[in-house]
């Protein structure tokens, strides 16, 4: 037995040494920047050190037996089938006592504190942000500040299709990142417009599903300014791999300046919603909105994907009455990937994109749809 114990101790020492001697073991998460991420990493490192040690200790015992108890070495089989003496029982029960302590003491206690801290969403929160998952983008809303915007992937299609070299932040870049002030406790509320999504930034140590029709929450307090990236981590359909999360964490002063700028943009959008634009202006604006929101399914050519996503070229909805067209965009088509865009796009946006669709790819209805027309239907639609 002495030989076994020797190897056991050696294995344990080696594993623990590798865990503690280097500041960052090979199994570490990305560098933590929130209290939760630090606590999670701590628990994770502890668990990993213990299970790696256990694994190699038991493996060493097995390998020793394979070597020592070979038939080719003339080893005769023993016949014991259970512990027989009090001492043997003690040897048998000791590992289980150890495991019990490991489960509910070494692991259980820090895990208990980590769970409580993870769920402490409401105490002393200084800012509330609402995150809405949508096929396939994230919408961010600051309810108190009255700011609301959508965040889309900006990696060009050519890079995905290997027609252009991939950029440094390939698949992890967006047009409008979430902006948070450094060092402030932020309560984040998640929900979804369509299917379940999951918002994850590894450096924050948090992941929470966005469930349609329900609110979930978590909190972050980012301690270092910087840009942090993550991805949707609940399969949400075709473009699941293409809806990244990007968060810019900035100083309080920068954050305040950013909020002011966003509020101006909101005011400008309001103006736009009562303005009357020309067909060309609407089309130009609509083309951009179409490119960010619609091409994933209906494609840049408007042709869709056969049998999966309908073509818009010469379609009945597009060439039919304007009201019907607007309603489909506003309310979506239930039980299909066609989302209700009423919550994500403003009246002016929908007017522009509808105008674009009715006057592109050979569609020539000549309609210049104005924001006011959308606003009217938005009121009726519920």
């Amino acid at each position: 037995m002495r030989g076994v114990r020797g190897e056991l101790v050696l294995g344990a020492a080696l594993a623990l040494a590798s865990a503690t001697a280097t500041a960052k073991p090979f199994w570490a998460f990305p560098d933590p920047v929130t209290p939760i991420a630090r606590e999670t990493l701590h628990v994770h490192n502890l668990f990993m050190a213990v299970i790696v040690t256990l694994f190699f200790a038991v493996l060493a015992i097995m390998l020793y037996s394979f070597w020592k108890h070979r038939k080719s070495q003339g080893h005769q089989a023993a016949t014991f089938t259970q512990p027989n003496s009090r001492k043997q029982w003690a040897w048998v029960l000791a590992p289980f006592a150890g495991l019990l302590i490991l489960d509910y003491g070494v692991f259980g206690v820090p895990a208990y504190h980590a769970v409580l801290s993870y769920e402490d969403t409401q105490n002393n929160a200084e800012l509330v942000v609402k995150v809405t998952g949508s096929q396939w983008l994230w919408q961010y809303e600051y309810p108190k500040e009255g700011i609301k915007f959508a965040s889309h992937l900006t990696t060009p299609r050519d890079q995905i299709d290997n027609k252009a070299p991939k950029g440094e932040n390939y698949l992890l870049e967006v047009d409008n990142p979430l902006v948070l002030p450094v060092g402030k406790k932020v309560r984040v509320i998640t929900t979804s417009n369509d299917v379940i999504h999951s918002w994850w930034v590894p450096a924050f140590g948090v992941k929470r599903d966005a469930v349609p029709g329900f609110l979930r929450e978590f909190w972050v307090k980012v301690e270092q300014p910087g840009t942090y990236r993550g991805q949707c981590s609940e399969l949400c359909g075709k473009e699941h791999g293409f809806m990244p999360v990007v968060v810019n964490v900035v100083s309080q002063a920068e954050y305040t300046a950013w909020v002011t700028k966003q509020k101006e943009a909101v005011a400008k959008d309001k103006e736009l919603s009562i303005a009357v634009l020309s067909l060309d202006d609407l089309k130009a604006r609509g083309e951009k909105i179409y490119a960010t929101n619609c091409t994933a399914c209906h494609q840049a050519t408007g042709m869709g994907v056969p049998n999966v996503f309908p073509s818009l070229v010469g379609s009945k909805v597009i060439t039919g009455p304007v009201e019907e067209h607007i309603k489909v965009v506003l309310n979506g088509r239930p039980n299909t990937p066609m989302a209700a865009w009423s919550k994500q796009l403003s009246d002016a946006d929908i007017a522009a994109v509808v105008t674009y669709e009715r006057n592109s790819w050979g569609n020539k209805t000549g309609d210049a749809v104005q924001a006011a027309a959308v606003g009217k239907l938005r009121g009726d639609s519920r």
Partner: protein
Amino acid sequence: MSVATTTHPGGHEAHHPSGLLRWIQTTNHKDIAVMYLTFAVIMLLIAGAMILVVRAELFQPGLQIVQPEFFNQLITLHGLIMVFGFAMPAATGLANYMLPLMIGAPDMALPRLNNWGFWILPPAAVMLVLPFFLGLGGVGAGGIDTGWTIYAPLSMQSGWGMDFAIFSVHMLGVSSILASINVIVTVLNMRAPGMTFWKMPLFAHGFLYTAIILITIMPVLAGGVTMLLLDRHFGTNFYNAAGGGDPVLWQHIFWFMGHPEVYVLLLPIAGLVPHILSAFTRKPTYGYKAQVYSMWGIMFLSVIVWAHHMFTSGMSVGGQLYFMYSTMAISLPLAVLFFCWIATIWRGSLTFETPMLFAIGFIVLFGWGGLTGLVLADAAADPQYHNAYFLVAHFHYALYPTTVFGAMAGIYYWLPKWTGHMLDERLGQWHFWVALIGFNVTFIPQFLLGLAGMPRRIPDYPLMFADWNMVSTVGAFVLGASHLIFVWNVIKCVRGGKKAEARAWEGAEGLEWTVPSPAPYHTFETQPAVK
């Protein structure tokens, strides 16, 4: 048991139609077992080929081979086919062949039910994959594409591939419930005189508890998918929040089936491995009763821990703590099993034939799968692992060693009994080492990818994940190739080889080794007496 004691003249002769009709009409447990096992291996190769396409796509960043919508179908079918098409039928096949032989029964208790249970499977499999292949040919939107977890409301959006999958799940469920009833009735009523409950082979214990779990969970899944069907086509709102339902309800129903399913797959193998260990260590099983008690513990715990799959879905603090601590409790009965397995090996007289290698491979790899499961149980750290590649690697370490290594161990162990020939030991060793290396090269990188933050089920990924994905893909192809060695080895063994004796392995114990190799078409028409 009047049947058991009836002998008819020339009892060992086979009376059955020849050709295809034999296989369609057969009520013989050995014939049905051969069909189960053949079906399982075909499914293994199909689902394996599907995931190799996925791995090929993930070889490099960017989209090269498949588009995302097709990618989603591949990962979904891979999961569903592996669990329902390969793993469960493989275990049922082993049970069908060996349970009667091991407990000294002439056949399964309900032979016609047995036939029916099998013949539901092929049409169910066709239903599952037909939309996929039609989609390849340009008909319809393709197969089910939601991941094998079929989460609502994504499952509301899919095309009719989803409806086919729902019906397929119904049929697969009926099939496994029938097989389970048969196992329970057989094990409880058909044992040879003198074989008391506490003398039953551990394989019979393991499969008995698997059958009990299956009868508990499959109806729940059937109910769940029926509600999904109603939501999709008949205007109900079970999973639709806008109509007063709750998408998370589906997750509860699914995981109430999905988590015990892991133990459904484990218990037959946990029962089988001690037989192999005992044979190749030439030493009696250590802690027989302790192993049975542990199986009871696992059976009970399996149905009360399901929501640890849902820590990121949003749950009360109390719920998280309960599911975390109850999940950790599983480590105790599992540790008892590991302890007994290793204690059986300890101070034996060891040889390392192919079945033994696979049994050891199972213990070591599944050990790591179990330990990483303990890490995932931590509700606070779980979000860092959940739906990331760490999780993918973890459950492959839990499932692959169990269902594939375990089944391979059983097949290699009993192949001489089935074919009358010893297998080609050299090919068997090749199979083992190629599979072991392929498996680890595939999945160790996936642990590291997960820790670095790569989510699962994405067809394309950021550049920082490129290196390990490349390694993983190479490993996957090596692993895939190992199964071809297996198929070749089995064919070779069926065709010929060294003649196997009744007791094919020196240290093998049990009633199955008292009948000739190959086992005659009818065995134990007179039940043996067990001391």
